[in-house]
């Protein structure tokens, strides 16, 4: 059953917004849950998070960061009116919906799109939520939406230095993230910290939060294939035990996560990911040139 794209737009550099007809997901999804998307016939299955939804109208919003072949191919080739082949879900456990008190919810890069539904629901439940978005200057998303949804939304942007390579630029984001979190925790008392972002940044932030002894939850993003607990690709060690993020998570107690392992595991396919991307870009450029002739 294909799922129709009702709306598609580039909302920031490399950030694409898709509003998609998927009533089976829209009807049931809770904040913290995700879907597995397969967009093309020879495509892979990738996990994405519904950011917004309308249960009556039957749509969900997904925001992708163009990071590799699949997300780039979606951005290049899918138009409003096209159909996505498969959207399975909702998957994973919903985020715990309780009155925690004062919450700092952090999103690094496009991670903020996963923070949004959870932070909004926490605020509606009576929590005092501060969201912090740290990203590159041209990649700001959901600023207005978050300002409206939570008590306080802090945006910290880092310029992209064109003279530096991307990994070095990303270190600047990590640095700013750590500085800002420290500053916030020093000046205010929080009951809980929540974060979505790359594993390395999560560990860096966790190391600061730990100093303050504040509880912290992390949304983990290991590699996934099926998303239903049948392969263990997404396994993580939590409190010394092997857990599957797709069925036991994706949210875990940051104090119990084996961060080193998680960081190592997220880089397992880097070489092949780059190869897929390069070959796709070559084909795409050829197609573009062909179109111009």
């Amino acid at each position, binding site marked *: *059953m294909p799922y129709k794209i009702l709306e598609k737009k580039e909302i920031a550099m490399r950030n694409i917004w898709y509003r998609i007809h998927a009533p089976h997901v829209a009807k049931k999804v809770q904040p913290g849950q995700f879907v597995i998307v397969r967009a093309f016939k*020879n495509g892979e299955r990738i996990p994405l998070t519904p950011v917004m939804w309308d249960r009556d109208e039957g749509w969900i919003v997904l925001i992708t960061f163009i990071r590799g072949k699949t997300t780039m191919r979606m951005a290049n080739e899918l138009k409003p009116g096209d159909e996505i*082949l498969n959207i*399975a879900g909702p998957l994973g456990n919903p985020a715990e919906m309780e009155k925690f008190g004062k919450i700092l919810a952090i999103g690094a890069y496009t991670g903020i799109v996963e923070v949004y539904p959870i932070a909004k629901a926490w605020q509606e439940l009576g929590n005092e939520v501060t969201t912090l978005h740290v990203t590159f200057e041209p990649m700001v998303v959901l600023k207005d939406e978050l300002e409206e949804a939570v008590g306080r939304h802090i945006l910290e942007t880092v310029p992209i230095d064109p003279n530096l390579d991307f990994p070095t630029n990303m270190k600047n984001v990590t640095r700013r993230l750590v500085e800002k979190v420290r500053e916030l925790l020093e000046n205010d008392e929080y009951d809980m910290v929540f974060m979505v972002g790359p594993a390395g940044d999560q560990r860096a932030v966790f190391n600061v939060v730990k100093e303050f002894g504040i509880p912290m939850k992390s949304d983990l993003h290991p590699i996934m294939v099926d998303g239903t607990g049948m392969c263990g690709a997404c396994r*993580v060690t939590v409190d010394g035990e092997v857990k599957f993020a797709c*069925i036991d998570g994706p949210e875990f107690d940051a104090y119990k996560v084996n961060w080193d392992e998680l960081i190592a595991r997220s880089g397992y396919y880097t070489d092949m990911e780059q190869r897929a991307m390069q070959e796709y870009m070559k084909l795409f450029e050829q197609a573009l040139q062909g179109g111009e002739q």
Partner: protein
Amino acid sequence: MAVKPKLIKERVPTPERPVEERVKSFVEVNLGYDFASAVKEAERCIQCPPEYAPCIKGCPVHINIPGFLKALRENADNPDEAVKNALRVIWNDNTLPAVTGRVCPQEDQCEAPCVMGKVGDPINIGKLERFVADYAREKGIDEELLCEFKESCTGTGGSVAVVGAGPAGLTCALELAKMGYKVTIFEALHEAGGVLMYGIPEFRLPKDILKTELEKLEKLGVEVKTNYIVGKTVTIEELLQEYDAVFIGTGAGTPKLLNIPGILLDRIYSANEFLTRVNLMKAYLFPEYDTPIAIGKKTIVIGAGNTAMDAARSALRLGSEVTIAYRRGREDMTARIEEIHHAEEEGVKFEFFLTPVEFIGDENGKVKAVKFEKMRPLEERDKRGKRKIVGTGEYVTLEADTVIIAIGLEPNRILVEASGFKANPDGTLVVDENLMTSIPGVFAGGDAIRGEATVILAMGDGKKAAKAIDAYIKQKKANA
């Protein structure tokens, strides 16, 4: 005076693709019979009466085996007619013969008690079943027959939801459709088939053949909803409101992993992940297909069941040297003899009496070796009849840059946890003699109630449940 039939002791062989050719690709290894050799093999059958034919009893879905072999022989001069009659006999009991003829462990089932096996080779029932299905598909004979079956389906006005599109669910759905029920299958993955799709490799069960078999569902009016995770997308309670009954055929798809150091190192796969990437996602065609798979030069597969053989032979086809390491001995292996034989022919090496105790990684977090403890067998046997083993305290380390763990599977917890079924400690659902679960109107079968078993046992359960569901719905409507 009756003439004693002359027994032909040896079975007619089926051709196989040569080893050097087949290890380079995922094409099917066994080429199957042609009509002439199929008839020759069918003529070896001594035609035990169906009331006591041991082969029928050995088949979990009780196909009238002498009946379909007789149909083949009777029209030896008219292949199309012969196959049509044979397929009609098979379909009465089994609607997926192209699958079962390929993947059943016939040596433990229909072929094990075959009388001919006492004096020579048992009849090659599996390959004959496969021949009938393949020939019928190639000639479009199955289409004709499907129309015939469809006409006999009288609408009962009942509807059934089937959870899981694996062998149990498919069989249950097809049987119910044949009885005239409106059936909807809910499947979590993007393709139907269950383990037939993601688990069993192309070289044993070509996916094109599977897909054609699955088209029968649509032709019999069965709807398949993929991307539905029952327990998450829709609950059992909701299904019960909409349907007269529910069948659970969710299988045992959660891999058991070894609880030893190093389990999270790079390039340690569960067999399920490895096979899903290869079979369902076609990672062996990367980058034409987007899903990657990282495989090194030396692979160790841990375990010795069919899953281990499938993983080992797939890794070999991806260009790796492969060793299977098993904690017991050669005679304790649970894989089909044919598959062990194929694996050996293709160059898979075997190491016995080794239990992994640690995965050793390099500085980049990639696995580089597996440390094993050497085991020793005892005379004593466990409840499955296998020899017990004990550690010797001696260790051996084998180099490997890829490890695939194939030590077994257990039922997925999503559904049980979401719906409050009565379950056993191993996660299998508790059912009564009619395969009904602790929730009235909800039936279950296959690996979901057995733990990891075989395709044909799952199909047998699906068929049995379909009968029980039919009786349950009729009773319910009579009482209403």
